[in-house]
């Protein structure tokens, strides 16, 4: 399973930097891990979709299916000491950074067993111990935040980067350009990862960006465009970018990818793009199918993959059922963790006279 396999990925497009090789080394063990993780992501998101439709989940719910190779490839190239921050489309970071499907599902359902105890919901999932900084609901805000996390790495002399993920829509945000400039001035170890799924809500990239070549939009900062539907292309490019960034500072990566679902649950996802386009993506570029084919062509038995699929399905189904039986957070949790040091001061409830001193209690033991 460890025998090296060489795969040719789509050549990288580059901006102000030399392209890394597009021959990527992997092996069956790694590919199998990718398959497992990506398949889990896929099942999880599909389960979330169903649970939303069954009204177990409310509010916004942004699914990642179609984009699995991006995050999976990133994780393969970095360590858990490297940091990640992303937008509201954050379910899969939760599991890739070590969280369980159960705690994700419980969070989506607003249960106390959830990743953020039912307080954050779909858009606000974090793993501080795993250097995952969320889950940010405001388009673009995570970009300077990510540069700041990178600043902390550098400040402490750590040899780590911050992967700062954002969409093609977010790529036009002014704060991105401010962050790029400072990251450049201060040589921050930040990798700006633009997940170009070609739509920001219902707006096609070219309707929102005069220049939709997002890998060049760092202007004076180097950039690289990657086939984001190919986990190996991503892994290889991120490894390259990490090495570059630790040495030199910021770099922009554009991941050419696709979201299968609509933007969030109220968007059917089919008014601003054609069914044909979606189908072509699914049949021609699906990131999971690609790995499956590679595994099969490298001697892995179809039955073994089925077994993985079955296991994953079971894990996800069980997580869904367990999440359903979870409990709503107790009423007094409303008053936890507003401040780390509340300084004894009471906050006000809905009615006059209702005052509570909020408690710092990240354990939620009581």
């Amino acid at each position: 399973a460890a025998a090296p396999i060489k795969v040719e990925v789509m050549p990288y497009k580059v901006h102000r930097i030399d392209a890394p090789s597009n021959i990527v080394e992997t092996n069956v063990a790694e590919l199998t891990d990718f398959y497992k993780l990506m398949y889990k992501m896929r099942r999880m998101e599909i389960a979330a979709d169903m649970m939303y439709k069954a009204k177990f989940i409310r509010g916004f719910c942004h699914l990642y299916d179609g984009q699995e190779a991006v995050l999976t490839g990133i994780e393969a190239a970095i360590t858990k000491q490297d940091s990640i921050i992303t937008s509201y489309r954050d379910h899969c970071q939760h599991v890739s950074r070590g969280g369980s499907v159960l705690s994700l599902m419980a969070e989506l359902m607003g249960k106390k067993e959830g990743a953020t105890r039912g307080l954050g919901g779909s858009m606000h999932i974090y793993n501080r111990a795993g250097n995952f900084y969320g889950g940010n609901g405001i388009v673009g805000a995570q970009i300077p935040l990510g540069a700041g996390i990178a600043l902390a790495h550098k400040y402490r002399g750590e040899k780590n980067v911050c992967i700062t993920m954002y969409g093609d829509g977010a790529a036009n945000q002014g704060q991105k350009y401010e962050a790029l400039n400072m990251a450049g001035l201060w040589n921050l170890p930040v990798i700006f990862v633009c997940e170009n799924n070609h739509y920001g809500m219902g707006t096609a990239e070219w309707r929102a960006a005069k220049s939709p070549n997002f890998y060049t939009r760092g202007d004076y900062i180097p950039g690289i465009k990657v086939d984001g539907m190919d986990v190996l292309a991503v892994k290889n490019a991120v490894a390259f970018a990490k090495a570059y960034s630790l040495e030199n500072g910021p770099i922009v990566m554009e991941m050419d990818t696709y979201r299968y679902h609509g933007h969030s649950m109220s968007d059917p996802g089919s008014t601003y793009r054609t069914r044909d386009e979606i189908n072509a993506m699914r049949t021609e570029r699906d990131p999971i199918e690609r790995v499956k084919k590679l595994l099969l062509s490298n001697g892995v038995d179809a039955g073994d993959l089925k077994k993985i699929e079955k296991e994953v399905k079971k894990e996800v189904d069980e997580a869904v059922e367990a999440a359903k039986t979870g409990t709503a957070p107790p009423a007094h949790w409303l008053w936890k963790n507003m401040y780390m040091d509340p300084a004894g001061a009471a906050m006000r409830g809905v009615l006059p006279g209702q005052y509570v001193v909020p408690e710092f209690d990240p354990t939620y033991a009581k």
Partner: protein
Amino acid sequence: MTVRDALNSALDEELARDDKVYVLGEEVGEYQGAYKITRGLLQKFGPDRVKDTPITEAGFTGIAVGSAFAGLRPVCEFMTWNFAMQAIDQIINSAAKTLYMSAGQINCPIVFRGPNGAAAGVAAQHSQCFASWYSSVPGLKVLAPYDAEDARGLLKAAIRDPDPVVFLENEILYGQAFPVTPQVLDKDFTLPIGKAKVMREGKHVTLVSFSKMVGYCLKAADTLAKEGIDVEVINLRSIKPLDKDTLIASLKKTHKMVTVEEGWPQCGVGSEVSALMMEHAFDELDAPVLRVTGAEVPMPYAANLEAAALPQIDDIVKAVKSIA
């Protein structure tokens, strides 16, 4: 008529009436509006009048304000008001202050609109109420419609107004239907800016609120009526200017007042109403003005906590009873 249709028809008519009026914002055109308030407008008025923007609030707000300085009448949609924080400098420092700074030379006829405050299950970054902040700023007018009549009458008034108007809608109300009179459907129907509406007359206690909470107050009033407490319900409609005369007149009748809002308590709209009654009607008060407000927490996601963080009809009933 739903609030959505009221807003949509108001935009439609004002676009037709005055070709200086145009609409811009994220997804207002081809997508027909994230909440479908602009449905059909692109098809009818074309892309120069209904402009899709990138997700760049600071930039498109500045562009909208600049175009208003130069004589156009933009209606600038924020997908929600939470996102307008990225653009608040342009709203305050450019739109609100320029007429004064320019000694009356440059006015800014613009409407900033979109859903404000809590929706359902959208958590801390998507649930903030901005009524009190904007209402503090001289140079701005701040409106908050409750029903379809408000939505039509206030939005049309806002678009025709020569000054910058912050227009705070409520996502949960969009789909709610209200009866309207034929007069409301008139294409020149407008409501006066700066005037509150007495939704229900009563003599024991005055309830003061705006937006979605007006409906809650009306329901609370029904409940209280059954217990013999006759409640007057005031719909502020305009948070700036704030119609203190109507409030004082009501207090002079009931001598008791409770304010209700979904926003946070500190320095909220209720604080202002309370302070005004203190200053202007101290001797009329038979009990303290009480505030029912959103709890002082970032909005939690879970449905039960979210409900606990927002005023419920029961809370209003309780507050009224505590002084009735």
